[in-house]
């Protein structure tokens, strides 16, 4: 959108005035730091949202218990967007104009991220997006701690093609995440001289895959790669197992497990699915064990802990670390701390920010679903977000505000 200069200036002017940021006389020591969060705590996407809401509260409580940040308490403003994108924009405006928060950790689907990212950029509110996604977002005001295709998709395709063959049938959720991830899958497959036979897209509320399963059998691929998202798409894995196909054609997925699908399916239905991601409850590090214990102590059921709940927790801890390093809550100061290469040791391993892309280098685990557990086959330490790094260099041109898509 051609952001007309006049509008941007008036927006920046009024909101700065409204927030009173530059002209606040002296820091009132007692004034709480405000952390805003918008997540889908109800509706079709609540299988992702509810655990993230718990993780957010846990992170804030733990920071406050340790004396808060810079001696100030953190106040959490949590909103439930009810799986409705329109409420994302509503609450984003509310966080900026009324609550005047200092940072926002929120958004689950890429659609919701794109609905609110511009609002936070225009009002100079620092925004963290802590969910795996299709990569390519280049915006100085936005920090991403979730995995990108280069980190999580490439290992799956690499391993799967070596193990099963090079004819792939892709199923993907029909929105920006699914569309772009499907392109990355095609990109990595063609790099390895494979062929994507067909790509089918499914809106989030489709739950009848009978005809699709028949078409897959017709195409007879070496394996199926799924980037399906949400509660309704769970029906695919169930109908795939019900027809006995899980014994015939192997299945790899870029999103399976993120919504605890392996717990919803029975052992027999889920076994053998190949996935890769930043987190699994089976990670044997003390940090993870301790995290799960603390989660339990708060009365939470550890079964529901999944990758993006951990990413949200790690994102908040990383932000806190940067505030401590910057010694101030000002957005510019925190951004400088971020761009000086901040990192933390989270339950999913080391989370190190790359200054050029504001994305995180993460440990990636190649996993196989076995008896409703994500057993780790192989771990790649600190895989960089190389896909976004190809296009985005925020140090060279900080004014960048674009989401790049892979060109096949």
């Amino acid at each position, binding site marked *: *959108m*051609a952001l*007309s200069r*006049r*509008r941007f200036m008036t927006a920046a002017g*009024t909101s700065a005035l409204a927030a009173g940021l530059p002209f606040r006389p002296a820091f009132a020591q007692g004034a709480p730091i405000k952390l805003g969060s918008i997540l889908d*705590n*109800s509706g079709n996407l609540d299988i992702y949202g509810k655990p993230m*809401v718990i993780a957010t509260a846990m992170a804030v409580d733990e920071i406050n218990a340790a004396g808060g940040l810079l001696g100030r308490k953190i106040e959490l403003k*949590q*909103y*439930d*967007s*009810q799986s*409705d*994108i*329109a*409420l994302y*924009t*509503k*609450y984003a*405006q*509310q966080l900026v*104009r*009324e609550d005047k928060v200092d940072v926002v950790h929120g958004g689950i*689907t*890429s*659609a919701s991220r*794109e*609905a609110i990212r*511009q*609002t936070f950029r225009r009002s100079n509110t620092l925004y963290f997006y802590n969910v795996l996604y299709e990569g390519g977002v280049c915006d100085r005001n936005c920090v991403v701690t979730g995995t990108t295709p280069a980190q999580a998709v490439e290992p799956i395709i690499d391993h799967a093609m070596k193990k099963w063959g090079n004819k792939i049938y892709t199923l993907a*959720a*029909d*929105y*920006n995440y*699914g*569309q772009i991830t499907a392109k990355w899958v095609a990109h990595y497959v063609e790099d390895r001289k494979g062929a994507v036979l067909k790509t089918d*897209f499914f*809106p*989030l*509320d489709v739950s009848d895959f009978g005809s699709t399963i028949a078409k897959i059998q017709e195409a007879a691929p070496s394996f199926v790669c799924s980037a399906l998202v949400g509660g309704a798409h769970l029906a695919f894995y169930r109908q795939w197992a019900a027809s006995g196909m899980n014994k015939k054609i192997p299945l790899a997925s870029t999103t399976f497990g993120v919504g605890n699908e392996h717990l919803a399916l029975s052992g027999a239905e889920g076994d053998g699915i190949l996935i890769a991601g930043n987190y699994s409850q089976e990670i044997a590090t003390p940090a993870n064990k301790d995290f799960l214990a603390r989660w339990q102590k708060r009365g939470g059921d550890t079964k529901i802990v999944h990758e993006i709940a951990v990413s949200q927790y790690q994102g908040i801890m990383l932000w806190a670390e940067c505030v401590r390093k910057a010694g101030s809550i000002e957005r510019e100061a925190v951004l400088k701390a971020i761009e000086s290469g901040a990192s933390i040791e989270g339950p999913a391993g080391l989370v190190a920010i790359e200054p050029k892309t504001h994305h995180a280098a993460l440990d990636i685990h190649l996993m196989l679903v076995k008896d409703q557990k994500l057993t780790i086959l192989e771990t790649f330490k600190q895989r960089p977000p190389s896909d976004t790094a190809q296009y985005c260099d925020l140090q060279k041109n900080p004014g960048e505000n674009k989401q790049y898509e892979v060109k096949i």
Partner: protein
Amino acid sequence: MTGSGFGVGRLRWHWFAAFAAALLLLPLVSETNTPTLLAIWALFALSLGLMWGYAGLLSFGHAAYFGLGAYTYAIASFNIGESTAPLLLALLVPALVAAIIGAMMFYGRISDVYLGVMTLVVTLILNRFMNATAGDAYRIGNARLGGFNGIPAFPTLNVPGDPGEQIYGTPYYYVVVICLLGAYLLARWILASSFGRALVGIRENELRMELIGYDVPALKTLIFSVSAAMAGLAGCLFANWAEIVTPSVFSLGQSAEVIIWVIVGGLGTLIGPMLGAAVLGSLKIALGSQTTVDNSLVLGAILILVVLLIPRGFAPALVAWRRRFASAQAHRRQARGTRRRHVVIRDADA
């Protein structure tokens, strides 16, 4: 639902002035972000209240025209840039689509529950289709339909003639309030006109209206189209408020919600639907600001209680209360014995 006369007596200007003043002065006492949304939802509810309350046309899929208005504006503003033409298109496209579908239904003698299902099917088709347009191929001019992602960051309403000067925040609140008041006056004017009275006649008895020579299908199609244009305007204003348009504007939930606002507010009145939209709208937003209580539980319980306890909705209940309060004055007026052509019978529009 017993009729309430033509439902609209002479407009009592002092009530209208008070109502308008309250809305216009609101920004002095509170922020305008949420009130703008509530005013938009009130306009949407008004459009259904006019068509359903007065012409008896119950649409299960009124969100279709709300959504068409929103999407038409977003797509047009990307391609045209300046916002005045897209605003007009956001009125015309829903009106045209409604005219076509309305004519098809009403000349096919489709009524009551079948009319409900037909309108439901229209909005479901739009929802399912728009939800599946995330691919690159789906674009009109330089506007990508975007499917589930919706269309974000299109040029919003600007001062007519000056594309640079976007309107948002409190000035935008005033634009929305003026649209709402304008729509209310238009609705009053329609209902006071012969066309409006014919609609009420049709609501009461279609056959008799046909027998005295009214072209019932044409009149129904006309009000269906006018109401769709009003809903399209609400959709367009919503698009500019949210600065994004997503297929959820066509959702089943959106259609059902507006029906509930009209019923809870008071069917057969104009103020009722607006009241219902504001009250239930703010409740939904308030419930969304907390995660302790599940909001569908609360909203569900409220709806059941309203139906069982206040069957005819808030507005008529308020009117009944006001009537009891005003009965003393009525006796005095009776004494003077003024003779008036069309007595206003139990109309909530004070």
